[in-house]
């Protein structure tokens, strides 16, 4: 690969960089940050903000035939300059700094004093760079340019044109990535204004990415607007549970309330994007109707139990059924559960002699980018642990039949509403024992004899194996409401009660799983890290 590497010097430091890399990225390799607004690694280069200027010298053949280093007389933008053999780059000379200060001063001329009401404050590039390159006092005495404020761009995005620094990132994203050419600039000079083409507005499933992209607070999310200041948000690395892509996300939460989900970099999965459906799919976490207490229901007599008591009673009744004859218990797992949970679920099935189990498939429309039609985040996990039938969902009918015949007397359901999946309320009524682990009330929880409150993805750690067979990790951001607890703890408790004590932490359960589950052999918890590991599954 050495032929594709070039040598160059940045701030006196010799580095090797692959051909075609631009200077912003090359400088990043040695930890030098070149300030920029319009450049974005996943978008085409626009080169219109002029913040990234650097001094560049290239090798030229001199009159005597020896190469001489010639400095460009003008400052060069780093984003649109690629590395060249023998190049020398200076990123922070007084001249450059003076130029950047000039750029900042122009940017701030018409910028409103909105930071106190601007949702971007705290993660705003303009604020940050104003600290480095801004003047403390304005020299501008004229009236500021007035532009439209509080304009809705489609239903999800609020545009404040006064704050826009005209970097065109949003335009490029909508045109090149989201595939909907709908934004553009209108007017000239300081009156340039971002606006939608007549009759069009952002209406794809990826619009909200421009809110992340926008370096300032010109584009803000209607959903997150004025909800919480970003500096209060606890950032937790997690995974989007909305489809089998498994986009890497950050959960922003404050005081046990999830406030927003944002994408995080993972070149192999979602680059820097996520779909709006997934992004807005967090409200159920804070739902006030969440189940908070283990309950037992005997002849309309509802009673709340302690975990120990619930676990004991359930184990007792399941053992009795197991000992009463074969095939009396069926399991319905969830491909939305973590791999560890499915592993424990499978183990529980083994202990109880359950052979009939499956997961409920969820599908929706897919698009060409991230969103998959398989809306279960861990179908692959359900398959490798053996909880899912092949193909997933194919044994549900058999289970329904078994209940109908009266052969199956008990059903354990993990976080699924099985009524749309073909096991209707009439069938549930026939069961002698229905155990439902669930987070939100549903028709199944209404019929369940034992109801165990579980935790959402934001409340636990665990792994998902995505559609491409990549195992990825998530972390707990908030605490479960009331007495609800992660499903792996519920299952581990049941297994312990049945004489199979489990490890105490999720991490050690993963380790135990990695020893017996072929696809994850040798993949350590730490190796999964924040970026995941590609497994070899088929």
């Amino acid at each position, binding site marked *: 690969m050495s032929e594709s590497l070039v040598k160059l010097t940045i701030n006196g430091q010799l580095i090797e960089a692959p051909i075609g890399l631009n200077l912003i990225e090359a400088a990043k390799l040695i930890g030098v940050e070149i300030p920029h607004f319009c450049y974005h690694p996943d978008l085409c280069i626009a080169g219109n903000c002029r913040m990234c200027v650097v001094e560049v010298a290239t090798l030229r053949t001199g009159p005597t035939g020896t190469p001489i280093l010639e400095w460009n007389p003008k400052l060069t933008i780093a984003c649109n300059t690629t590395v060249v053999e023998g190049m020398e780059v200076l990123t922070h000379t007084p001249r450059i700094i003076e130029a950047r200060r000039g750029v900042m001063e122009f940017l701030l001329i018409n910028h409103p004093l909105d930071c*106190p009401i601007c949702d971007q404050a705290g993660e705003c590039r303009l604020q940050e760079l104003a600290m480095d390159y801004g003047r403390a006092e304005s020299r501008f005495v004229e009236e500021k340019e007035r532009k439209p404020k509080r304009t809705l761009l489609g239903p999800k995005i609020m545009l404040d044109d006064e704050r826009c620094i005209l970097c065109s990132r949003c335009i490029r994203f909508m045109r090149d990535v989201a595939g909907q050419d709908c934004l553009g600039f209108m007017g000239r000079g300081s009156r340039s204004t971002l606006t939608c083409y007549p009759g069009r507005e952002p209406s794809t499933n990826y619009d909200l990415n421009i809110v992340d992209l926008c370096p300032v607070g010109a584009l803000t999310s209607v959903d997150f607007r*004025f909800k919480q*200041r970003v500096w209060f948000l606890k950032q937790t690395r997690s995974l989007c549970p909305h489809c089998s892509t498994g986009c890497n996300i950050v959960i922003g939460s404050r005081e046990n309330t999830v406030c927003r989900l944002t994408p995080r970099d993972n070149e192999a999965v979602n680059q820097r994007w996520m779909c709006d459906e997934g992004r807005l799919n967090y409200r159920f976490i804070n739902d006030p109707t969440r189940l908070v207490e283990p309950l037992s229901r005997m002849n309309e007599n509802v009673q709340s139990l302690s975990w120990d008591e619930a676990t004991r009673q359930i184990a007792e009744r399941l053992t009795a059924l197991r000992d009463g004859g074969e095939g009396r218990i069926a399991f319905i797992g969830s491909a939305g559960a973590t791999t560890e949970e499915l592993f424990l679920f499978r183990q529980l099935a083994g202990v109880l002699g359950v052979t009939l189990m499956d997961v409920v498939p969820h599908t929706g429309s897919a698009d060409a980018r991230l969103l998959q039609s398989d809306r279960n985040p861990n179908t692959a996990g359900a398959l490798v642990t053996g909880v899912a039938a092949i193909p997933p969902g194919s044994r549900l009918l058999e289970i329904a039949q078994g209940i109908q015949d009266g052969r199956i007397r008990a059903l354990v359901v993990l976080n699924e509403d099985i009524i749309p999946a073909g096991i209707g309320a009439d069938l549930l009524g026939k069961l002698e024992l229905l155990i439902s682990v669930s987070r939100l009330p549903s028709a199944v929880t209404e019929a369940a004899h034992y109801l165990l409150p579980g935790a959402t993805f934001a409340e636990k750690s665990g792994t998902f194996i995505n559609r491409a067979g990549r195992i990825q990790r998530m972390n707990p951001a908030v605490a479960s409401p009331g007495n609800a607890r992660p499903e792996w703890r519920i299952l581990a408790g049941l297994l312990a009660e049945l004489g199979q004590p489990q490890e105490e932490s999720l991490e050690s359960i993963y380790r135990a799983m990695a020893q017996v589950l072929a696809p994850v052999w040798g993949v350590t918890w730490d190796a999964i890290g924040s970026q995941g590991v590609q497994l070899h599954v088929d």
Partner: protein
Amino acid sequence: MIVERPKLTIWDRLYMPQILKGMWITLKHIPMKRFTRQYPEETPPLPKRYRGVPTLVRDPEQRVKCVACQLCEFVCPPRAITVIPGFRAETGPDAKVEKEPSDFIIDMARCIYCGLCEEACPEEAIFLKKDYAMASYTREQMKLHKEKLLELGGIHEDRICKWKKK
């Protein structure tokens, strides 16, 4: 430095003269001027920069100045402030301010009267007034809400009136 223990004479060691002298001193103090301030009737003179209860102010046009930026909440060392951000009425005269606190709670049981909130506020919306008698019977009552804070704060004679020009 070594301090030698002073040699006591017999006279000193008797103690009595010193004790009697002391008793004479205390006796003399009985009719002297008293320094006690009879508090609720006599209030103490407050220094010019005295920091009392933090309050929210309105500008001369009756606008609630606070825009719920939550910087005071962030800076407050004992975390006495809770701001619940909300929206200004879409059509009212302050619609262009966009944001306002839908509630603003200062827990006076926590506040240490440091004045950092006043210092941090970019909108000059929170001021420490001179009131100091903020006692209550319950902890709940110690939490001052937006209405109470605005009432305590009154109008701030603001010369800039930023939002008027917006």
